[in-house]
C-alpha cells in the first residue's frame, strides 16, 4: 500500500482542525458558540449544515456543558468532538477529570491562548498545560497540517482498547489557528479507513443494559482505578508510535511522541513544543554554520511525557536549552520541570537551562534563539538556570 496524497488546500489551523474532525466522521459536536470559541466550530457547523458531515451540533450555554454533552454522547457510543480555548478550557476543568476517569475517548481541540487577566488572544500554552494532570493525552501541533493529522491520529489513539483516554490536540492561537498554510487534506474514504468505527465496549448508556456510570469507591479502590489510568497512559506511548507509523505509511506524514532534528551528534539540544520549533530549526542550522553542534527536540506528546525519547536525544549533549512558551508562576517553565525530572538521574547528565519566552504572542525570531543559545553555552558563571527572554527592563 503506497502513500496516498490528498488534495492541497489553503487552510488556517482552525479550518485544518475542522477538516480533521470531518475526516474522522465525528457524530456529536457540542460547543459554546461564543468567545473564546474559534472558527473550528464555525467551519464544522458549516459542514453539518451543508450535509458534508453527518453529525449533531449541540449548542450549549457554557464550555462546562459542552464537555458534559461530549461525555454523555461519547458514553452512548457516539464519537464526540469539541473545541475550546483559554478561559473556556479552564471552565471545562472538572469535567476533563470525569472524561478521563470514565475512560471516554473523546477528542478536544484546544487553541492555546493567554489566560486572562490581562487578555491576550495570542499564544501561551499555560491554558492546556494547566490541565496536564487531568488524565487526558495531550498533543501539540507545530503547524496547521499537523493539527489536521493529529486529530485523525488522536481518535485512533484514544479509541485503542489499551488506551481509552480523552485526547487534547493543542495548537497555538493565531500563530497556527489563524495563519493560512498549504494543508494536504486526505481523502475521506482513506481517512475513514484509517480511523475506523468506534464501538464502546466498556461504558455505554443503553436502557436495555443498565449500567452504573461514575461510582463511589472511596479508599478501597480509588488507587486501583488511578493505576488503571496510569497503565493506559503507559500503553498510550506505544500506541502513539504505532499509530504514527501507520499514518506515515498511509499519508506520508506521521507524528509520534517527539520530533528530533539533528540531535544525533548534538552537544546543545534545544527542547521546545509547538510552533516555536519552526524558528528553532532555522536557529539550529545557523548555529551549525557557526560551528556549534546544535540539535532540536520537539515534544509532540506532552502527556504521556516521552521521558525515554528525551533521555535518548539528550544523553550525549552537555547543554539542554528548554524554550517554554508557558510559565508556572513561582517556579519555572513547565516543560523545563518535565525535562529536568527526566534527566536528573543520569550519572553525567547535561546542564539544563530554561528560557521563558513568547508569552501572549511576543514575537520570537530565529536570531533571538541563536543569541540566547550562544549566551547560555558560553557558561557565564552568573547565568541563571531559569531566565525570561525579551522582557523590557528585566535584562
Amino acid at each position, binding site marked *: 500500500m503506497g502513500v496516498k496524497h490528498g488534495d492541497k488546500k489553503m487552510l488556517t489551523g482552525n479550518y485544518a482542525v475542522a477538516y480533521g474532525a470531518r475526516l474522522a466522521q465525528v457524530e456529536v459536536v457540542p460547543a459554546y458558540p461564543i468567545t473564546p470559541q474559534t472558527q473550528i466550530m464555525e467551519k464544522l457547523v458549516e459542514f453539518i449544515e451543508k450535509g458534508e458531515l453527518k453529525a449533531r451540533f449541540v449548542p450549549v450555554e457554557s464550555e462546562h456543558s459542552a464537555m458534559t454533552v461530549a461525555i454523555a454522547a461519547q458514553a452512548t457510543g457516539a464519537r464526540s468532538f469539541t473545541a475550546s480555548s483559554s478561559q473556556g478550557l479552564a471552565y471545562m476543568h472538572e469535567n476533563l477529570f470525569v472524561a478521563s476517569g*470514565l475512560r471516554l475517548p473523546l477528542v478536544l481541540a484546544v487553541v492555546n491562548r493567554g489566560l486572562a487577566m490581562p487578555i491576550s488572544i495570542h499564544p501561551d500554552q499555560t491554558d492546556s498545560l494547566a490541565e496536564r494532570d487531568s488524565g487526558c493525552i495531550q498533543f501539540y501541533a507545530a503547524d496547521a497540517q499537523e493539527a489536521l493529522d493529529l486529530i485523525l491520529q488522536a481518535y485512533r489513539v484514544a479509541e485503542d482498547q489499551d488506551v*481509552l483516554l480523552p485526547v487534547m490536540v493543542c495548537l497555538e492561537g493565531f500563530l497556527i489557528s489563524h495563519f493560512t498554510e498549504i494543508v494536504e487534506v486526505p481523502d475521506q474514504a482513506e481517512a475513514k479507513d484509517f480511523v475506523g468505527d468506534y464501538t464502546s465496549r*466498556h461504558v455505554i448508556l443503553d436502557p436495555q443494559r443498565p449500567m452504573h456510570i461514575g461510582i463511589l*469507591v472511596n479508599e478501597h479502590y480509588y488507587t486501583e*482505578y488511578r493505576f488503571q489510568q496510569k497503565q493506559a497512559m503507559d500503553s498510550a506511548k506505544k500506541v502513539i508510535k504505532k499509530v504514527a507509523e501507520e499514518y506515515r505509511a498511509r499519508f506520508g506524514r506521521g507524528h509520534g511522541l517527539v520530533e528530533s532534528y539533528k540531535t544525533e551528534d548534538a552537544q546543545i539540544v534545544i527542547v521546545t513544543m509547538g510552533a516555536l520549533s519552526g524558528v528553532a530549526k532555522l536557529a539550529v542550522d545557523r548555529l551549525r554554520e557557526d560551528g556549534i553542534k546544535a540539535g532540536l527536540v520537539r515534544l509532540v506528546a506532552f502527556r504521556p511525557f516521552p521521558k525515554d525519547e528525551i533521555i535518548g536525544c539528550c544523553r550525549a549533549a552537555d547543554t539542554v536549552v528548554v524554550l517554554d512558551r508557558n510559565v508556572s508562576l513561582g517556579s519555572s517553565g513547565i516543560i523545563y520541570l518535565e525535562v529536568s525530572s527526566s534527566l536528573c538521574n543520569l550519572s553525567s547528565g547535561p546542564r539544563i537551562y530554561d528560557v521563558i519566552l513568547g508569552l501572549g504572542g511576543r514575537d520570537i525570531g530565529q536570531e533571538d534563539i541563536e543569541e540566547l543559545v550562544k549566551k547560555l553555552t558560553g557558561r557565564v558563571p552568573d547565568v541563571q538556570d531559569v531566565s525570561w527572554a525579551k522582557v523590557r527592563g528585566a535584562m
Partner: protein
Amino acid sequence: MRKKAALGPDPRKAFTYQELPIGSTITGLERDLARTGTWRFYRPVFAPGSAPCRQSCAARVDIAAVMAKLKKKRFEEACLDFMLENPFPGTCARLCNRPCENACNREKVDGPISVRAMEEFIFSAGFRLRPVVYPGRERRKIAIVGAGIIGLSSAYFLARLGYRPIVFRGDGLESASGRDRRYDGVMAEEIDAIVEQGVVIWQDRWTGNKTEEFEAVYLSVSQTAGRDPDRGAISREGIFERTKGAPDCQGVDQAIEEGKRMAVTIDAHLRGKGNASETRRSDIGEKGGISSDLYQADGSNRGDFEVKVTGGVSQKADDEELQKLRQRAVEEAMRCLNCGACTGCGQCILYCPEGALSRSSVASRTIIVDYAFCKGCGICRNECPKSMFVFKKEEGEWE
C-alpha cells in the same frame, strides 16, 4: 448490602486493578438493586387541577379539555366533552354571563379566551351524543315538573344516567323555550337533542294526584315567581324541591348546575345511596359544583355508558357560516393555555433521573409514578410547565 452493590465494587473484597471494570462503572445491575424509592421524603403526586374557567362555571364544563381538542381539530371529541357537562351550548352562547371568561388566566397576557366562540361552534356543528342505555333504569318512573333550563337539565342528566324521565310543564308556567322567544329556534333545537336522549316531554299540566305514579318527583318550579306547585295529597320520600337558595335563573350555568345536582340526588335516591357522599365525590373546585363526567366516571356505572358521538356533522357542515364559526373556535382554542391539564410534553419523563415516570397506557396525558424508584428529588415538579405534580410529605418513620 444491596445499596453497596449499587455504589461500587464490594469493599470487603480485594479486587486487583486488572479485575476492576474500566471506566468507573458497574455492569450487570439488576434494576431492583437500586430501589431508590427508599430515599424519598416527599412524594410527587400527579394531580391534574381544574382550570379557573371550569371552577368558575357552575356547570363545571371542562373548557380547557374542550379547547385542547379543538386545537387538534378533534371536533367530535370536543363536543362530547362539552355535552357531558352542559346540554345547552347554544343557549349559553346567548344567555350566559360567562364567569369563565372573567376567570381566564389568559387575561393577564392579552385578554381572555372567547368561550362564547367555542359554544357557538359546538351548537352550530350539531353533533349528537348516542343515548345511554342502562338496562333496568329505563323503567324507573321519574317526573320532573317544570320545563325550564333547570328542569330540562335535570331530565338530560338523568337520561345520561340511563333513566327516561318525564317532564311536565309547570303549574301555569311557560317553558323556557316559550319565555325567551328571541332564542326560540336555538332552544327548540337543544330541547330536541334532549328528547333524543330519551326524555319525554308531556304537554299535560302537572297535578298533585299524579305523585303516586312516580318513584321520584322533582318540583322544579320557580319559587320567586310566587307560584306553588301542586304537591299532591301526601308528602313522602322521593319528592324533591329546588335546593334552598337555588338561583332562579340568575345565570344559565347555575341553572344547569341545579339540574345536574338534582339528577345526581335522584339517582342516589333510586340506588339507595346517601346523597351527600354521591355528590361529594364528583365535586370540583372549592365552591362545590358537580361534574357529571366525574360522577359517571367514578364507581360502577362508567362501563355501561356509550359515550360516542354519532351522526357526525349535521346538514350545516358545508355551510360557509359554520366554517367561519369553526375557524373562529379553533383560533380561540389555539390561544387557550389549557390550565391544569397535562400537555403530554414528556419533559418530566425525560428529566427523571431514576426513570421512575411513564405515560399511562390508558391515557397519554396521565403520568404514572413508580414509587419503588422515585427518590423524591422534585425535578419533575420543576420541569413541568403546567405544575402537574404536587409534593406531599411521606408519612411514617424514617428508617
